[in-house]
């Protein structure tokens, strides 16, 4: 009995409970003196239906995790299991072979030994399937009966249903928070393992990066784990080159859109600018690698720079800057538009020109919002992966020359995790330490940006 079928069954039972409860509530309504009951019949119906569906769904979830293990255990308890190899791939292969045939997912077996287990698997699966079905029905019946028996003419079903709905909404909002916590915990765990092998000082302040996944994992060479070139590459591409592009362009487009553009233009331009934010970063990556980077190399070559490479920090940074423009411009746009029009009128009435008004009144008043937008944009840029993977190169250079290849934290995370090294090798684990540093930096930036935005919101309201 697969979980999907059990789930459909639960929904069917819930529907039955719903109908029964509504009929019951109707009968209350008919027999009450003034035709009124405490809650409307639909709420009685939902109360019973939720009481059936929620416990049953919980059980099915747990059972879906638990029952395969119970099945395997009971198969291993059969006499044939004594002939299995004790551990390792072979044993796993035989068991999963037999399971596949037993559930009908495969026609034949690869390992002839598996044939002996098909029968026991079939038996165990049908045995536990029956148990699952029976328990589902029992839970549905008990919970439904419990809820149904509580129905009375003066039963406050609506309040209960609303409480349940609220709890469900709370759970939904907790999912994102718990996921964040889970990410932090797993990152911290692996990072601690890494720092057990490589000294954090060497990692954070070393200037040579080049972990060798093939070296002996027991004695990593600390001089190859210096992450400074990566941090520099990340900041240089994401926070310097990209921002040199994005801040002026974003700010100017926001000023044009809020102050100069005719409404009909604004209606077109603003959404078009925001589409930029929706372009997948891979597409920007193509653009950077295939169009911008070669163009930059050609220009550099014709300017007499002979060693210009076809992958450069400049190409990645420029394209990333363009990608970030909508973030800067839409935050700047919002905060300029949020400056009360009385400020603008006041300045214009003093005889200031529109541009004086923008420079001396509107932008200073909107500055906190603009700064917050820039910080969000930076945190977005330094976390960006695809563009740098495709256009910035892989060499960990510690240089200020934008025409050279550079690498970033995100690039190295990808490189280390997809390399050939085994999972407990420090080279692989370094990806987690890098990720953790990146996470902390972007978290700090976002936190700071949100605080600035909040203060700014309070200033005018």
């Amino acid at each position, binding site marked *: 009995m697969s979980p999907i079928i059990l789930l459909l069954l639960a929904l069917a039972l819930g529907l039955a409970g719903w109908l029964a409860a509504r009929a019951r509530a109707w009968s209350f309504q008919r027999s009450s003196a003034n035709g009124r009951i405490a809650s409307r019949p639909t709420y009685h119906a939902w109360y019973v239906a939720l009481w059936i569906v929620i416990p049953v769904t919980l059980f099915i979830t747990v059972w879906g995790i638990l029952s395969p293990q119970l099945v395997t255990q009971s198969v291993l308890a059969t006499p044939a299991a004594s002939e299995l190899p004790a551990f390792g791939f072979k044993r796993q292969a035989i068991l999963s072979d037999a399971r596949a045939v037993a559930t009908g997912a495969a026609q034949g077996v690869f390992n002839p030994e598996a044939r002996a287990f098909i029968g026991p698997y079939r038996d165990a699966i049908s045995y536990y399937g029956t148990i699952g079905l029976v328990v589902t029905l029992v839970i549905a019946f008990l919970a439904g009966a419990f809820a149904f028996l509580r129905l009375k003419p003066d039963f406050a079903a609506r309040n209960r249903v609303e409480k349940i709905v609220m709890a469900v909404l709370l759970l939904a909002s907790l999912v994102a928070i718990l996921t964040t916590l889970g990410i932090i915990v797993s990152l911290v765990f692996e990072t601690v393992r890494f720092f057990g092998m490589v000294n954090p000082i060497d990692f954070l302040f070393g200037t040579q990066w080049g972990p060798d996944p093939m070296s002996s994992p027991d004695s990593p060479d600390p001089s190859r784990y210096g992450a400074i070139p990566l941090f520099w590459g990340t900041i240089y591409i994401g926070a310097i080159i990209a921002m040199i592009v994005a801040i002026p362009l974003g700010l100017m487009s926001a000023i044009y859109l809020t102050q100069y553009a005719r409404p009909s233009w604004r209606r077109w331009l603003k959404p078009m600018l925001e589409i930029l934010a929706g372009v997948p970063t891979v597409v920007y990556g193509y653009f950077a690698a295939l169009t911008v980077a070669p163009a930059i190399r050609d220009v550099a070559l014709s300017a007499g720079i002979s060693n210009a490479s076809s992958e450069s920090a400049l190409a990645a940074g420029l394209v990333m800057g363009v990608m970030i423009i909508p973030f800067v411009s839409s935050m700047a746009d919002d905060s300029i538009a949020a400056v009360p029009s009385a400020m603008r009128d006041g300045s214009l009435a*003093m005889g200031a020109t529109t541009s004086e008004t923008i420079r001396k009144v509107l932008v200073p008043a909107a500055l906190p919002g603009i700064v917050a937008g820039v910080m969000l944009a930076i945190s977005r840029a330094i976390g960006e992966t695809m563009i740098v993977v495709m256009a910035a190169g892989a060499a960990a250079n510690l240089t200020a020359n934008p025409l050279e290849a550079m690498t970033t934290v995100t690039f190295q995370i990808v490189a280390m995790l997809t390399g050939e090294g085994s999972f407990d090798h420090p080279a692989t684990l370094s990806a987690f330490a890098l990720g953790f540093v990146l996470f902390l930096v972007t978290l700090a930036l976002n936190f700071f940006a949100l605080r600035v935005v909040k203060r700014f919101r309070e200033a005018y309201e």
Partner: protein
Amino acid sequence: MSARNVSVFYGDKKALDDVSIDIPTEYVTAFIGPSGCGKSTFLRTLNRMNDTIPSARVEGKIELDGEDIYRSRMDVVQLRARVGMVFQKPNPFPKSIYDNIAYGPKIHGTADGKDELDAIVEKSLKRAGLWNEVKDRLNDSGTALSGGQQQRLCIARAIAVDPEVILMDEPCSALDPIATAKIEELIGDLNGRYAIVIVTHSMQQAARVSQRTAFFHLGKMVEYGRTSDIFTNPLEKRTQDYITGRYG
């Protein structure tokens, strides 16, 4: 200032119909009338603040010292330096008190050096009757002042560019009675130095501060004359009805 046959349209809607008026420079002139009668619209045509509303269109002729302010060669920036404005809601810039006053002189380049700018700031604040209250905290934000102080700051800001005319659009409607009394007193002090035009909802206020009053109704100027005549002996029945509280 004088206006001849001025009409204002917002899109297709006519907000002001054929207004002609001579505003004397030596008096305070009050515009009164019920909401939506066009008095604020007319006020905003006098320094072309209606230009900031894309759909607004002005017909007719308005002259300042004999020059048509709507002629194509008129520089709006110069006009607004000569015809200042104070708004309904105090709108100091989110800058220091000093910078609020220094804003106009700086953009118009009227002050030579820091000393002269300091002098303008002090003079403007003194004329606006705010100097004694803020002289020790000129670097505090203008938005931290009370509502009445903010409005006097806005008046000081307007004075700082030394205009000929100051337009006031219901300058007391967001203020409490004590702050209102101070502003009215200030208008009395400024009278004579600047031509002042004030739009007000309060007939008592018009009677207290102005020497000339114009009554607007439904986009037309109904009657214009000495304040004492308008309030005691109006020529038009509509004026009398409004003043005696029959509508509005």
